[in-house]
């Protein structure tokens, strides 16, 4: 079951949102409703399911409804129509006290403007969520301290927000969310207000945190590079609706429509595509037990080298026809997930097609410089 499930979600803003949402819930035609009640749809008919442990980026320009969508996930904004289900609980069915419990235990939010409280030290700010949840003082300060250390602010515990730089303030904002140890993190353009260098640092920090402990992260961004860098999946939004949802590669290679293609127009394909996506089957594969037979053969007409596999299809080395066996440790290899950009150098260095292997060593295919260039021309 997905951790967060959104179905048929609408949010209307305008003069008579109450009447409009009643009409919507009664099944009226959305376009007519908007016109009749003078409303504007910030979010229209959105269906998404977000799996546990993934970084899900909602990407769109300003005014596309992405921040409104995020705020409907923790009930800061209530939907005009549709359902939000978080960990099996439907948000609109919860009483205020239950909703507070859900916010205290399940999801924490990080804000674009940091939204730290003035007059509290970094430590007290980081402990805020725990304080609200009624965790005893000594315990919450300890947890806040370790959260601050985790984001690299161990030395500035007693500084006030106004004494910290933007990047450091957002570290406190992140620590405030992490101190709760929530399964879900909601990040509203969390790094957009930061300088490019600091933003990069914070992205690394987030990826680092995900390696330690996988949380579900819903990340709002208007920056495509950031979306591609962080997102396991990306939902592209425009005018309140989701244009397409999928991995960055799917969006780049198989855009659902012209508008998606337009978004990805300037994206550097070599940093999005990974080697396993374009690798081709090795032209000449032999089993390890047959290697000795090759020694006496004349040089192969095609690629000239054989890719040697063991019984479980793991790559164990190269065997040039008529030459001697080269074990895998001495062969240039690419692991799945490596971007084409990173693959360029090893491919350029190697005469034969470079083997692409999975994390556990299975041969997925090979990649020659020619295939690399072809893929980049096509993208």
């Amino acid at each position, binding site marked *: 079951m997905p951790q967060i499930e959104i179905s048929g979600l609408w949010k209307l803003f305008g003069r008579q949102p109450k009447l409009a949402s009643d009409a919507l819930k009664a099944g009226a035609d959305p376009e007519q409703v908007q016109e009749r009640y003078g409303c504007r749809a910030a979010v229209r008919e959105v269906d998404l399911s977000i799996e546990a442990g993934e970084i899900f980026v909602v990407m769109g320009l300003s005014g596309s409804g992405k921040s409104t969508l995020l*705020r409907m996930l*923790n009930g*800061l904004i209530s939907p005009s129509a549709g359902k939000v289900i978080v960990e099996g609980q439907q948000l609109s069915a919860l009483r205020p006290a239950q909703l*507070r*419990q*859900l*916010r*205290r235990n399940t*999801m*924490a*939010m990080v*804000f*674009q*403007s940091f*939204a*730290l*409280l*003035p*007059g*509290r030290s970094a430590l007290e700010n980081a402990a*805020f*969520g725990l*304080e*609200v*949840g009624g965790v005893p003082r000594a315990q919450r300060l300890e947890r806040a301290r370790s959260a601050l250390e985790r984001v690299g602010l161990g030395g500035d515990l007693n500084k006030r927000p106004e004494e910290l730089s933007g990047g450091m303030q957002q570290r406190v904002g992140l620590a*405030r969310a992490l101190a*709760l140890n929530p399964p879900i993190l*909601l990040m509203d353009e969390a790094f957009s207000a930061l300088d490019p260098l600091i933003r990069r640092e914070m992205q690394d920090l987030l990826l680092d945190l995900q390696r330690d402990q996988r949380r579900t992260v819903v990340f709002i961004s208007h920056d495509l590079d950031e979306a591609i860098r962080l997102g396991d999946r990306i939902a592209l939004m425009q005018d309140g609706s989701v244009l397409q949802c999928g991995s960055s590669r799917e969006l780049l290679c198989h855009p659902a429509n012209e508008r998606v293609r337009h978004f990805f127009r300037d994206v550097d394909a070599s940093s999005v595509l990974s080697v396993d996506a374009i690798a081709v089957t090795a032209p000449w594969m032999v089993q390890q037990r047959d290697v000795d037979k090759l020694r006496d053969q004349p040089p192969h007409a095609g690629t000239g080298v054989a890719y040697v596999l063991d019984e479980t299809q793991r790559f164990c080395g190269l065997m040039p026809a008529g030459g001697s066996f080269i074990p895998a440790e001495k062969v240039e290899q690419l692991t799945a997930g490596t971007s084409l950009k990173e693959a360029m150098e090893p491919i350029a260095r190697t005469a034969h097609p470079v083997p692409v292997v999975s994390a556990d060593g299975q041969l997925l295919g090979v990649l020659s410089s020619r295939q690399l260039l072809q893929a980049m021309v096509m993208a």
Partner: protein
Amino acid sequence: MSTMPLAITAAGPVGDAVDQLVSWLLTHGPALFSLIQGLVQGLASFFEALLAAPPAWMLALLVTVLGLWRVSAGFALFSLLGLNLVLFMGLWEPMIATLALVVTASLLALLIGLPIGVLAARQRTIWSLVRPVLDLMQTMPAFVYLIPAVMFFSTGQVPSVIATLIFSMPPVVRLTVLGIREVPADRLEAGLSFGCSPSQLLWKVQLPSALPTLMAGVNQTIMLSLSMVVIASMIGGGGLGDVVLRGIQQLNVGLGFEGGLAVVILAVILDRLTQSLATPPVKGLTERWRDWRRLWSD
């Protein structure tokens, strides 16, 4: 040619209605009024006794040190000289009496005004009820409060405190409402997203964020109290206002000026000290002490 009446002595229809309301209150609420009378008188006497207890030099020194810590060396010097001048003019006792009234009236105004402000900031209907009352309280000429105050509480300190607290309450209500309303939306969202209940949101997010504006309201209320307490000398409030009033009655410019000067000194001290409470001190006491010594060496 018709002649204008030389003086208006009888009230019109609106005034009659107010007269009737006042006389109804007078016949039906004496128990309530004597309760209020007792409470306010007790409070005023307590503060007067408290402030008169230490010798003048000790109080002056206390104000000077407080000023040195919270405001600046220059202000500390001003306080010391100013308070000595008051003592030298022989106006120390009236000043203490005025201060006691200001403290009593401000305290009561804050006790009533702050909760009203908090409620009005959260409930639009309450605000729409409170707002016209505040407008009335602020624009009604200050002297008008003196008449019913005298009718309900006779003359003396109690009606002075009551008239003063009515006159000085609007700013603290208004600025509390303003302060809470202008708390940035993202801070409220942060509070709510971490699961604040409405009261947690008030105490942990809204009031701390509104504190600077709130303290400006407190400062305004204290300053208005001081100005009204001086006027309330006309109904027997006593203190520095009495000195000024005697100056007017006897056409004694010198006496009036001395009384006025003492009011100004007290006003400046109260204003700066209460303003400084809104923010944490910029410098430590030792650093201020160095500033103080530099005043003499330069």
